[in-house]
């Protein structure tokens, strides 16, 4: 149906519980409850495949559990978990390139045209799918910062924390990503 959503309120703080295994478990449960869906969707839009996204999300939360002690404060939780997801996704993309050059996400210029075949045109003519196709054709770092900005509503500073870049570098990258996305949307018959 519709893709327009009414936001849910965020849950309470994640990491201010007292020390101990029970507190650690409780913190992790809340982390998972709050971020499993956004992280899964973020990764899914990054890699464009539901199964790969599930694997990466799984590994992200296992890593997060192990690194929970390194989380300094509540304010940085979101950037922290997104950073783990980003690094996990990049590792996976690199492994995939090593094992299967045909699936190379970074050599996007050499990929076959991912526009749909006849059956997909029948079932996949929705605007959401055309946007997703346009997104899939972007360079991975362009795709990543655009998703973080426009889907996950992060500021340039937050994106910098996730991607390990300076504020200025993020602004430049984001601008280039918007330009590339504009051209890809035009290929899909959307926008000006």
């Amino acid at each position, binding site marked *: 149906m519709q893709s*327009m959503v009414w936001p849910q309120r965020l849950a309470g703080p994640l990491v201010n519980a007292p020390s101990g295994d029970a507190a650690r478990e409780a913190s992790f449960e809340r982390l998972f409850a709050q971020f499993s869906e956004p992280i*899964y969707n973020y990764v899914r839009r990054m890699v464009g495949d539901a199964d790969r996204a599930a694997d990466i999300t799984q590994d992200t939360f296992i890593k997060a559990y192990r690194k929970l002690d390194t989380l300094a404060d509540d304010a940085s939780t979101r950037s922290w978990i997104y950073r783990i997801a980003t690094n996990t996704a990049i590792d996976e993309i690199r492994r995939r390139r090593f094992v299967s050059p045909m699936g190379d996400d970074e050599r996007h210029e050499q990929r076959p045209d991912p526009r749909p075949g006849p059956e997909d045109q029948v*079932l996949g003519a929705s605007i*959401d799918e055309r946007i997703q196709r346009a997104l899939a054709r972007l360079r991975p770092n362009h795709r990543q910062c655009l998703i973080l900005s426009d889907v996950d509503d992060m500021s340039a500073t937050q994106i910098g924390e996730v991607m390990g870049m300076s504020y200025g570098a993020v602004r430049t990258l984001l601008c280039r990503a918007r330009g590339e996305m*504009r051209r890809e949307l035009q290929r899909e018959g959307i926008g000006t």
Partner: protein
Amino acid sequence: MKRFDSHPDELISASLTGDLTDVERRELQAHLSTCQVCRETLEAFSQQRQLLAGLPVRAVPRDLGPRVRTGIDSGRFGAPWWRRPGGLLAGAASLATVAAAALLAAFFLTGGLKNPQVAASVPPSTSAVATRSPSVTSSPAETPEPTPTQAPLPLGMRPGDLVYPALSGPIDTPQFTIDNNRNGQRLAVSPPSGQPIAASLSPDGQWLAYIYLRGLSGANEVAAVHLSDGSVVDLGATEGTAPFSDRLAWSPDGRYLAFTKAPFDMAKGQNTDPHGPGSTEVYLFDTTTQATSQISSSGNAYAAGWSPIADGRETLWISLAAQNPQSWAIRFPLSEPLKAVETGELAARADGVFLPLISPDGKRAIFWRGTMKQSGGWSFITSGLPYLTSSSSGGIPSFTSAEPLFSDITITGQSDSFATGDFGWGADSNTLAFWNGLWSGNHQPTGYPDQQVVYVGKATDSSLLTARSGIDLGLKATDRIAGVALSPGGTQAAITVGHATPGDLASPSSTLLVVDLATRKSHEVAAGSTPAWNGPGGYFSPTGAQ
């Protein structure tokens, strides 16, 4: 003021996320006032941001939690992508899941066919009682003359009044009301977690059923509000991606609401139907007991609508999606609520017919024909077209002598097809509308038919619907038609246009338009209260338009 050597795309980009300094903002504003290219860039980037923000949110796989827990407990990482389905634990879990699903399926299949299941009766859960408060908003509505009634109706309702849900206010403290557009009366109701995307007013004016978005989960929730006291009955969660599942069909006497759900467990994030993802069932809400019953168990059942009451019996139409779909008319006595499809009387079976919508007088029906395919939910893959059938005598319509609803669409092959779409009747049983038609075939000249155009016509018009029947509202690419209702006299259409939400923190907004069908002129209902979501609307019609 700074002059730029080239177009300042980077500042335009940064302006969308509030990442400009005051100086940069002033410089950019000054430049935009003189540069058409940059204004176009700003518009393109803004539209792009809205499009991305509006992408659907997918539910996480149901086994994600257990997989993470297994990985933590075993001290190992989950399965690498090239070795799916992974290690011993994951494999064993998958096998167990499959086996359990197979057992469940076998149980339901055998039990369902031989011994009709006694449908689970779900006790109602009610929330929030409302207060009634007069409203200052009012705009003209059709049919001013009241008809004699035994008792005052909720919201001071008269036949022809447009009644609609309205969600407004800040996202942390939203207000939700049911409004009567004619007299401005308003009923405050417990706010839902997202905007309504379908709504239907009962023919007796006592209930408004609606489907709303369940936050960011990707699921929807079905609910009904009792307009006499504002109490809300929760009718359960449903997968948000199943086409054809948003029809809310009231029985002609207003006692029952038939609706479709792809039953969804919010905690597990999965469809709970034993037939698997995308499966749908038909449910019946009885307003007299406020209990809800699941009356089908096939995994592919959809609520279609009702025929008029005859001989002291209700007649409910249920469709079964399949490559070649079917529709069944189920009769049951007024004195004996239907507990399960199998306990009713089969009045008719129509092969190749999907989601028939019977006119209020029972003499006409609009329905789908075509070949369907399941891809998540069911939709048409080839030859999916709406048809109209008529009979002078009433009763069960004949579906064999039907005409295409669109008389001027040139069919060049099987690929010419709608994948999905919606249609509705006016209470006059003559005015009809079609909207949200997702055309997947060869486009006709001028890009017709258009998903963002509402087509309205008369069943008595020999040409039925054509390109000229379209009401072009000039929608943006990201707008969606959330609902269309036809006034009892067939002179107006209330059209709800939902707008894309720019980011998770923005309030949803829609425009509820009342269109004069003779002049095609429109005016906005409840204009001025922004941002707000108004609609979808329904006209009070005691004769039972759906």
